[in-house]
């Protein structure tokens, strides 16, 4: 128990000090750009929770994010499985896939606006396109790197194709698929914000940029705080899901040391 408290203190002192520093350093700030943290916090509560921008701006952003990401995940894993199991097809398509993967996804935004317009379907399409590639490429890599002994097991016991796919190949690729899904998620978040910053009338991205353009600086800061917290929250949710799926993986087993990676 005391080691738990010790650990907690060790991890928490720096964030606490940083926030305190911000709080006191900005207390008497008269700078237009850096309002006192106290006012930002008040404003955050006021704008997002009392005036209800949570439901008018955050919910649409999250819904679009979810739709786009879900499409990318489904299509990415399905196609990744297919290409992973058909090495020759993958080999033939590799140059095209590498090219498309290298497109910085925000660059297609204007093109998507031309093609689809300014609606939510454009946003969902852009998110789906941008986050599809890391999922696809990692699924293919994961499927292809199944341990040959594991493949032998599947063959020697004559497993049915469905069993082979869902009980053997897919779980064995899961760590890589999730690594791809994590990258895809951060790309998706960037894309939803950027797409809202260019030509939307609502959504978080639109809110912060509009606040900046209207010199509503405290509002802008409050939006950034909400964004930061949402980013963190999304990440934590992802981590929980991931550790459930990968319960069996050495990195997640009971007592496994924590490791950091992208």
């Amino acid at each position, binding site marked *: 128990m005391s080691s738990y408290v010790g650990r907690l203190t060790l991890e928490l002192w720096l964030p606490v000090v940083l926030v305190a520093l911000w709080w006191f350093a900005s207390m008497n700030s008269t700078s237009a750009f850096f309002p006192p943290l106290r006012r930002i916090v008040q404003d955050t509560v006021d704008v997002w929770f009392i005036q209800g921008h949570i439901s008018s701006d955050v919910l649409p952003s999250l819904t679009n994010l979810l739709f786009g990401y879900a499409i990318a995940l489904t299509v990415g894993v399905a196609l990744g499985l297919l290409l992973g199991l058909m090495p020759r097809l993958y080999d033939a398509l590799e140059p095209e896939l590498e090219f498309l993967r290298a497109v910085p996804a925000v660059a297609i935004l204007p093109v998507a606006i031309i093609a689809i317009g300014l609606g939510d379907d454009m946003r969902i399409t852009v998110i789906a396109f941008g986050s599809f590639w890391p999922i696809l490429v990692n699924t293919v890599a994961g499927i292809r790197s199944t*341990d*040959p*002994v*594991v*493949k*032998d*097991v599947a*063959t*020697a*016991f*004559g*497993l*049915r194709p*469905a*069993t082979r796919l869902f*009980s*053997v190949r897919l*779980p*064995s690729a*899961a760590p890589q698929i999730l690594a791809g899904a994590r990258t895809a998620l951060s790309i998706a978040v960037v894309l939803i914000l950027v797409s809202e910053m260019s030509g939307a009338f609502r959504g978080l991205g639109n809110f912060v940029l509009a606040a900046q353009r209207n010199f509503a600086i405290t509002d802008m800061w409050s939006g950034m705080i909400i964004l930061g917290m949402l980013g963190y929250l999304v990440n934590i949710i992802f981590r929980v899901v991931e550790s459930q799926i990968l319960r*069996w*993986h*050495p990195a997640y*087993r009971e007592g496994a040391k924590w490791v950091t990676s992208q």
Partner: protein
Amino acid sequence: MGDVAVVEASGLGHEYSTAGVTTRILGSLEFIVASGEFVCIVGPSGVGKTTLLRCLAGLLRPTFGSITVDGHPIARGNSALSLVFQDYGRSLLPWLTVLANVALPLKGTAPRAERRDRAVSALHEVGLGDVLENYPWQLSGGMQQRVAIARALVVEPRVILMDEPFASVDAQTREALEDLVLRIRNHGGMSVVLITHDIDEAIYLADRVIVLGGRPAEVRANIPIPFGRHREQLATKAEPEFAELRARVHQLIGAPDDGRRPAADQGNPRDEGARQ
């Protein structure tokens, strides 16, 4: 031992070709495995034992000759045959529980409840009735190999094939597993083909030892082992005939008879990973 042949290999040969070079590994092997018979195949490291077993298991199509099981040519995933791999750490699926690992070969062939019952009884047979919901990686090496044996049993095979199944467990565990396999065979009546490079193990377990040697590998000898069905680690190995047989097999293989067990074939698992 019945006299009915379960496995019949005739003119069995295999060659690997890598980068345009073909190497004949297995010459032209002729042997049978009778119903209920325990056959151990011994030979020096690299002679082609694993290759032979992979051919028997249907993982590799032999370049020459034929193998039949109960008179039918072998097919991939034939449930008359099942396999225990050497490398339990890799052959059990870490994302499935012990029970699910054992029930896996039955998926799609039997209803859920039946799969469970059969898996549970296979696990009881190997003495693991109490770790059903654990993951394999939570168990010791010996227990993991028991799980692998249960998985081989669950399909009720005519023949169980084992490739150096006890090479990576410690000596005590190994003896316990050897006795377990003997008991399973005596009880279930299936044939066992077990590959080992440990001569003592081969003689202790087998009804017949097949010695492989040479390149390409040929059957050097077919040695019947006259100890009957009931064997005991200390008593059987203390029989004067045991020493004679050991000396004979050693000579055939060409290893010096120092009475010690050879070290486990460490290179093997990795090799297999890199190949395929």
